[in-house]
């Protein structure tokens, strides 16, 4: 049995599944980390363009916000398709197309003079670009090339790189806008996005083959996943992750302003979330290698609810904001490695990118709801109290959703047993 076959057995697919030539783990980690650092980082500071773009173009804030909402949904909707193409044909090609779309979207975003063109470039094109060069596609390569006993850790390390990208790019993009102007800053970022292309060569896999009669179509993989209660529980839980993260990310500055906090408090809180997010995602991946992932996820969602509830009930001052930001930072994207590692563990890695994309679609729908409902209920009630408590309640529900998840590999009765 080859090393690749051993990985195949450990994928929970009941038979050896191998790619003809495995990529080395350091290569996969380095290239994957660099790609998500760029792809997650560049988009993270888009809010910084709101003020200069709306002033220059005489747009309303709704025009800008609408394009970013479209981007989130486009990312989620295109995710399963990008993942399917990566699984079926080549993650490398999807990454290249994703990098090109990223650069094109940024250039067209800079040149957009109407709200519709802006929604098309910053919304649709950049959303599709992100689906092609973020976690789902990179995790597929990690899943196929890193042994199961290191997979969760590797996903955590890569997610930490994405978190670092988000942390790094806010001051970098702020500096770019100040020094070069908002339009040139987007051109510079477009050039940075093109760096994904050469880096993606490091994730170029040999054709993925399955032997011993194992073949599964895309439709069969999707039917199998949706028929599995654990997949549905995971997907439902991930909705809450998106809801909480986007609600807090978008509406917290407004909440702090309403409560008389100085502007510097919000920026320091932003920095603390970014810093602790790096530690949180790495640690979640590392712990996922040692503890049952369903308990990690349930614990994460339960802790989020606890942290938010304590934040709401405690007196609001800069210290409580910083403590909240640090605690939420630790829990911020730390759902990403265990969720994707669980999908790989249960269903194997043949369609990991596609199934990861499906779960992520739920995350993006939650993100949309978090942003939208936050604004809607604020307008209706005059404060954020109700949405905060909805976020607490959803965290408890998500914790409960993850507890019944069965982590054991799915048993495929129609597959011939492997000949060791």
């Amino acid at each position, binding site marked *: 049995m080859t090393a690749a076959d051993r990985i195949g057995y450990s994928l929970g697919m009941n038979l050896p599944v191998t790619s003809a030539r495995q990529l080395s783990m350091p290569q996969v980690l380095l290239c994957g980390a660099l790609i998500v650092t760029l792809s997650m980082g560049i988009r993270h500071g888009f*809010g*910084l363009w*709101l*003020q200069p773009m709306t002033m220059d173009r005489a747009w309303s*804030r709704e025009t800008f916000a609408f394009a970013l909402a479209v981007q989130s949904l486009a990312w989620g909707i295109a995710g399963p398709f990008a993942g399917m193409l990566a699984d079926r044909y080549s993650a490398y090609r999807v990454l290249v197309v994703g990098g090109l779309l990223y650069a094109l979207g940024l250039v067209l975003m800079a040149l957009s003079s109407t709200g519709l063109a802006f929604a098309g470039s910053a919304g649709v094109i950049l959303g599709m670009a992100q689906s092609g060069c973020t976690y789902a596609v990179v995790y597929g390569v990690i899943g196929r090339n890193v042994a199961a006993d290191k997979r969760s850790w590797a996903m955590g390390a890569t997610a930490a790189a994405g978190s*670092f990208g988000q*942390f*790094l790019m*806010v*001051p970098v993009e*702020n*500096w770019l806008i*100040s020094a070069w102007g908002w339009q040139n800053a987007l051109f510079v970022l477009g050039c940075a996005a093109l760096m994904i292309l050469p880096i993606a060569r490091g994730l170029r896999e040999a054709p993925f083959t399955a032997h011993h009669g194992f073949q599964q179509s895309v439709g069969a993989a999707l039917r199998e996943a949706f028929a599995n209660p654990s997949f549905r529980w995971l997907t439902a839980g991930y909705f809450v992750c998106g809801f909480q993260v986007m609600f807090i990310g978008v509406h917290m*500055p*407004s909440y702090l*302003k309403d409560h008389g906090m100085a*502007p*510097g408090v*919000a*920026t*320091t809180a*932003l*920095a603390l979330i*970014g*810093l602790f997010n*790096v530690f949180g995602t790495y640690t979640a991946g590392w712990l996922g290698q040692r503890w049952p992932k369903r308990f990690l996820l349930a614990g994460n969602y339960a802790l989020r609810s606890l942290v938010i509830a304590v934040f709401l009930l405690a007196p609001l001052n800069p210290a409580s904001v910083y403590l909240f930001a640090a605690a939420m930072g630790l829990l911020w994207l730390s759902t990403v490695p265990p969720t994707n590692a669980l999908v790989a563990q249960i269903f194997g890695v043949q369609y990991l990118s596609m199934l990861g994309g499906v779960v992520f679609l739920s995350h993006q729908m939650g993100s949309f709801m978090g942003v939208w409902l936050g604004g809607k209920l604020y307008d209706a009630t005059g404060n954020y109290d109700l949405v905060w408590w909805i976020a607490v309640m959803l965290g408890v529900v998500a914790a409960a959703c993850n507890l019944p998840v069965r982590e054991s590999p799915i048993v495929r009765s129609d597959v011939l047993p492997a000949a060791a």
Partner: protein
Amino acid sequence: MRDIRRLSARLLSWVAAAVLLATVFGAYLSPHLVVDLASRVWACL
């Protein structure tokens, strides 16, 4: 000897990561960025 070298490399990489994170965190706290960022964040509300 090989273990010591491996341990040193691991330690060095952790120190490098810590320095990098501290540098970026320091960038957030620089007065210029705080004012600049705060005005942009606050302008979005």
